């Protein structure tokens, strides 16, 4: 695998929604390339006839009756919200007024 460029590091940070300073991005570029070097030998492992495992302790998925059970009261669930409006979490508008109209 080739080295991660600065532009790729910026793209990954944007995908991860991490707002980082130029210094932080530079440090991460170095760290990530150091770590990716350690991954390189995996490419040499023959996995041509090996299925992937998402988990290795495989159990039957339990099912229960489809009956609503009590859950966390709304007030408790919203207790940690930075901004609240009635029974809702208040967030910033994602559409401009023009788009709304």
């Amino acid at each position, binding site marked *: 695998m080739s080295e991660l460029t600065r532009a790729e590091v910026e793209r990954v940070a944007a995908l991860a929604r*991490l707002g980082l300073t130029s210094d932080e991005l530079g440090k991460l570029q170095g760290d990530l390339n150091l770590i990716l070097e350690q991954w390189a030998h995996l490419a040499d*492992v023959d996995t041509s006839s090996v299925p992937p*495992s998402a988990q290795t302790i495989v159990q039957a998925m339990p099912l229960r009756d489809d009956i609503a059970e009590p859950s966390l009261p709304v007030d408790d669930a919203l207790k*940690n*919200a930075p901004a609240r409006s009635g029974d809702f979490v208040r967030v*910033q508008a994602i559409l401009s007024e023009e788009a709304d109209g």
Partner: protein
Amino acid sequence: MSGESLRRATATELRAAFQSGAATSRAVTDELFAAIEREDGVLGAWLHLRHEEARAEADRADARYATARAAGPAALSALPPLLGVPVALKDLVNLTGTPTTAGSRILEGYISPYDATIAARLREAGAVILGKTNMDEFAMGSSTEFSAYKKTVNPWATDRVPGGSSGGSSAAVAAFHAPLSIGTDTGGSIRQPASLTGIVGMKPTYGRVSRYGIVAFASSLDQVGPFARTAQDAALLLHTIAGADAHDATSSRSPLDAVLLNLPSGDAAASAIRGKRFALPKEYFVAGMEAGVERAVRDAVAALEVAGGIVEEVSLPTTEHALATYYIVAPAEASANLARYDGVRYGASKHGGGDLLNGYLETRGRGFGPEVRRRIMLGTYALSAGYYDAYYVKAQKVRTLIARDFDRIWAAGFDAIVAPTSPQVAWKFGAKMSDPVSMYLADACTLPANMAGLPGVSIPCGLSENLPVGLQLIGKPWSEAELLSISAGYEALTATAAWRAVAPHDLAKLGGGAA
């Protein structure tokens, strides 16, 4: 019982003392809080203490013991084994009404609105929950130096790390601030700190303990487990928290062995080693392993042989790929799990100025510390278009090979794998902070068991440079009772060993009150 003997008592000893009336839970709780008050300024194990609630829980436990004593022996023995026994929780376990930070600034101010299943089970069992312990941010780290809040020192040497990520929980038990604590182990975060602080720590089989209400790191690897100073105590805590939970679909219905409540002890425990077959994987004696660690581990293996255990060297050839595989799978899952910290519903928030996207970028960019950012970046990259097959899918395939390696060991009739827990003793603060890869290598011997979902336990097996060394036992799925029985056997075999007489530093002499 009083004073120092109360403080140093095991959970098993406390239970007997509570039953007979020789001690009260309230007296133990007061004694431990006093020790914490005197010493945590140096130790730094605790993030939150529940002074009033814990004392009320102790008083309620004492009342139940008194009632049962009046009713007779049957009523006393019917009481849950951890009734009145103090426990510490790693600060990623939700406990209603307490802060849960996961060691991160991004959860500063968050108050749990509900109980994790294991917290509810501990409450139901009447345990006294003393408080929450320090950890590497979101359990990412091997030294607890990545906590956003404080430094936790190793009770054996205050210039050295306690291991991690559950370093607060391991230090608290090693320093006699609690007989029991809860940790989580995604790549070694229970076993490695147990090894570095000279106590017992177990990662159960994936699915043995519910993760509901535990802050998630890597969901295909995370397990919750006990820290204690003896195998029997660890077994009691495991028995209390384990079992199927409707809130965690990965939790298992596999029955718990009742022997956990009463492991063999003394000669019976030692003689249970006879005829057991132990696999000694040559790949676990990795390059860079300290000579003193290797010596202590090989001595422990020799002791098992003297007791009639059959030890054979084996090969687990995929061990060399486990580290890279883990550091793809775990960050990939972490990047998805940590997407929820967006500053909108809870936790620290930088929304308000600018647009919504800017609020996300600021909240996450400022809220996460350096190691968490590194892992989110790694994981996001490994899952991104064009790299997913080369990294993530490849790692999932190598995981299959790692699991097959272990399957071959069990098919050959071995009862357990014996290996070092950590290739080195506790290191000095800062020694690995500038090089992430050197920190990752600290988990080389523990993370294969996570990749395969297997149970593993670390037990003290000696000293190197006057610092504790851990012996790791890895077992087949659901064999926790077997692993802890073997551990109890090893404890019996080495009960009079000279190294067992060496204790951690007396922190009280170092001065410094609670922060």
